[in-house]
């Protein structure tokens, strides 16, 4: 069929076409193109921010002022890459393949437009709010409540458009790729809504509806499954569509793909607690997370093998076709990352790897290899087709492939090395039974060279993307967009007519998208419910520690500064029950200590030391000097200075609203305390400044640094008080 541009896709059918019994309709390629462009543009921005963050870890000088510290731009990097680069990549792939697999145009052009622009606005609002310090601090769910609501609305628009398209399809059976899309839509909706329960304090500040252990379990149920259902299932759906397309042969085993789908979505949802091994969560939840993580290896590798074996007898094509090269590395990276994941969830491996750069290397094999390379492959494949031309230069695409691959290696290998080295150094005892590296900074300085190399790896990868953009721009210029692509297909007969000889339940479900969605929901909810319900039981069963009290109003303001500055990105608040940790930090963390923590701030990475037992460890003056210039207290420290905390005043106008919000959530402040809270705040601030004055430091009580010191000095001290009382 020759290319044909149609100005009015809704024009009446031609008489002869009606006579042949075929419907004529038009695929919408414009939305596909828009999502492809958006993916590239946001990809460059997200990766650039990532490169800056990488070099900040090697040289603190790269922390450029208040709005560009590592703590603030790290969430910008993760959100931009996950939701902007990969997110737009998903929509590009879904809008292209869904129309063709359903043999129909997308359900509504208006919904497509709202979806596209709505999603870009959400990303823009993330770019605006995260550097300003508006964050919930929950990983990959940092955006504040108004943006959470906008995400929900746009996600519903996407779902509406997708189901509308599926329902008006001309192909009876739903291809396995579409099942993956449906499970993505449903599960992300469930995860996003449940993890975003929060009580607004002001327009851009909220407190989590969950506290402590419960918040941690819900967050990592979300966090783990955001990886599963945003970074994995939609990309598997795309793999099942684009790989057969690019290789021009059907998938190796369609049977295997059915097992792959159901077991993957069924098992994935259980594995979240493996992010909290040795943390203060119940043993049964940890064990459940481990067992299901190991089981996850089977469907993940089933999918990878299915992908790679699709190329059996076609490996000669891989040598010549860059699209297939990108796909092979993507699928291999998927295989490596999904082998490593279950290994990392073994408790003995996790004990070394957790909180180190090993985890960062692991996720980047997934992000750069699996998501990045599959996105590139699909863009290289799609753009020439919808622009009715050929790719400008295969040579440049091959160059991009090699630069990108070397970039991934340069990124991952030094970080694996760094993670392993540091994990072992933390645990090293000398012959006297003392910690070999008792100064945490020693273990950091050891791996700074790896941080440089990782930054170079990131730069290489980003340079490859620029090569690609040049290639794509040249390709686009040599062709013209076929905005509405003509296609023909027989209309779908009513289902009853061919139901007579195929009564099997799975075939039945393959024809019914709504039932498919319902069963996929049931599959993910079983895991979700069994994992989450006991955590709500825990809430009333966590052994309460009598001496654990709510934060004072000054400490609360300090805690919100800790959240604003993104301290949690580099410091954990979770001393694990290992001798190497209790020696270094003090008593291990207890579940009952976090009952007033909204949100929880356990963290997932120790670029700096754990802070859970920080309270009372140093005098106020130490923190004062350390926040002003970390190297003055810890020579060689890679932590950036925070001079603005010494200029800016505590936002005391927000105190009553904060206290009221926490009271609404059950924190036992006395009735009417909201109005008195600022008096307490002032009193405690003056005590701290008086103490500082005795150490020769003059600071006004209304400065932010005072609140932060109050919070840091409170950390982990509740049970210390208990010990003192007990010994009296």
């Amino acid at each position, binding site marked *: 069929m020759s290319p044909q541009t149609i100005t009015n896709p809704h024009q009446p059918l031609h008489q002869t076409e009606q006579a042949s019994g075929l419907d004529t309709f038009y695929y919408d390629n414009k939305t596909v193109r828009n999502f492809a462009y958006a993916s590239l543009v946001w990809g460059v921005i997200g990766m650039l921010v990532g490169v800056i963050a990488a070099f900040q870890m090697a040289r603190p000088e790269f922390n450029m002022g208040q709005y560009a510290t590592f703590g603030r731009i790290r969430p910008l990097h993760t959100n931009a890459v996950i939701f902007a680069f990969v997110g737009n990549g998903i929509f590009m792939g879904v809008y292209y393949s869904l129309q063709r697999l359903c043999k129909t145009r997308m359900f509504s052009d208006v919904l497509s437009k709202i979806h596209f622009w709505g999603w870009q606005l959400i990303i823009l609002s993330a770019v605006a709010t995260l550097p300003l310090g508006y964050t919930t601090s929950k990983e990959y769910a940092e955006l504040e409540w108004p943006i959470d609501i906008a995400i929900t609305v746009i996600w519903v628009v996407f779902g509406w458009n997708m189901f509308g398209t599926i329902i008006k399809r001309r192909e009876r059976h739903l291809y396995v790729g579409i099942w993956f899309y449906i499970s993505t839509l449903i599960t992300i909706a469930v995860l996003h809504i449940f993890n975003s329960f929060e009580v607004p304090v002001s327009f851009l500040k909220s407190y989590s509806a969950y506290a402590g252990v419960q918040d941690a379990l819900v967050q990592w149920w979300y966090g783990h499954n955001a990886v599963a259902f945003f970074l994995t299932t939609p990309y598997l759906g795309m793999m099942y*569509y684009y790989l057969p397309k690019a290789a021009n042969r059907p998938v190796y085993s369609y049977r295997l793909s059915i097992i792959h789908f159901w077991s993957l979505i069924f098992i994935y949802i259980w594995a979240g607690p493996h992010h909290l091994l040795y943390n203060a969560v119940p043993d049964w939840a940890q*064990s459940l997370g481990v067992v299901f993580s190991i089981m996850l290896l089977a469907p993940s590798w089933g999918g990878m093998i299915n992908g790679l074996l699709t190329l059996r007898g076609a490996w000669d094509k891989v040598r010549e076709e860059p699209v297939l090269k990108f796909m092979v590395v993507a699928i291999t990276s998927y295989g490596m990352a999904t082998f490593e994941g279950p290994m990392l969830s073994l408790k003995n491996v996790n004990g070394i790897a957790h909180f180190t750069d090993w985890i960062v290397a692991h996720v980047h094999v997934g992000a750069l290899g699996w998501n990045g390379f599959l996105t590139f492959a699909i863009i290289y494949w799609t753009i020439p087709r919808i622009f009715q031309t050929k790719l400008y230069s295969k040579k440049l695409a091959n160059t991009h492939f090699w630069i990108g691959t070397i970039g991934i290696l340069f990124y991952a290998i030094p970080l694996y090395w760094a993670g392993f080295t540091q994990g072992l150094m933390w645990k090293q005892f000398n012959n006297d039974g003392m910690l070999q590296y008792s100064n945490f900074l020693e273990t950091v300085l050891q791996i700074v060279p790896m941080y440089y190399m990782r930054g170079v790896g990131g730069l290489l990868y980003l340079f490859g993307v620029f090569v690609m953009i040049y290639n794509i721009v040249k390709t686009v210029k040599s062709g013209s967009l076929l905005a509405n692509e003509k296609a023909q297909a027989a209309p779908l007969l009513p289902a009853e007519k061919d139901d007579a000889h195929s009564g099997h339940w799975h075939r039945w479900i393959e024809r019914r998208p709504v039932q498919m969605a319902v069963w996929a929901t049931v599959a993910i909810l079983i895991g979700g419910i069994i994992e989450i319900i006991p955590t709500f039981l825990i809430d009333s069963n966590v052994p309460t520690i009598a001496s654990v009290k709510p934060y004072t109003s000054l400490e609360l303001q300090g805690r919100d500064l800790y959240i604003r500055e993104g301290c949690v990105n580099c410091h954990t608040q979770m001393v694990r029950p290992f001798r190497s940790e209790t020696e270094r930090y003090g008593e291990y963390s207890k579940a009952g200590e976090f009952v007033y923590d909204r949100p929880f701030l356990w963290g997932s990475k120790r670029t700096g030391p754990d802070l859970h037992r920080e309270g009372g460890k140093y005098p106020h003056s130490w923190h004062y000097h350390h926040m002003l210039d970390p190297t003055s207290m810890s020579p060689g420290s890679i932590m950036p200075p925070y001079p603005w905390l010494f200029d800016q005043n505590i936002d005391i106008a927000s105190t009553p609203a904060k206290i009221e919000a926490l009271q609404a959530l059950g924190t036992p402040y006395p009735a009417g305390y909201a109005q008195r809270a600022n008096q307490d705040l002032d009193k405690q601030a003056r005590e701290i400044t008086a103490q500082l004055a005795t150490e020769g430091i003059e600071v006004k009580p209304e400065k932010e640094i005072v609140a932060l010191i109050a919070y840091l000095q409170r950390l982990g001290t509740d049970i210390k008080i208990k010990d003192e009382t007990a010994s009296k």
Partner: protein
Amino acid sequence: MYKNVLESIAGIEIYPIISFLIFFIFFIGLTLYVIFSDKNHIAAMGKLPLKNDDATNYGGEAEL
């Protein structure tokens, strides 16, 4: 400490057992279905992305 939490939730042992049984039974059923499903149907399903390509043969398909 962790043990205390575990024991304080009545009947918690049943959760991992239920979860395993649900998955195991489901997985066996699915495997049996897949093994005994109709060959022609499976082959036709696998070809869906290729079959739908009629209208999209632009670009470099020929040179692949």
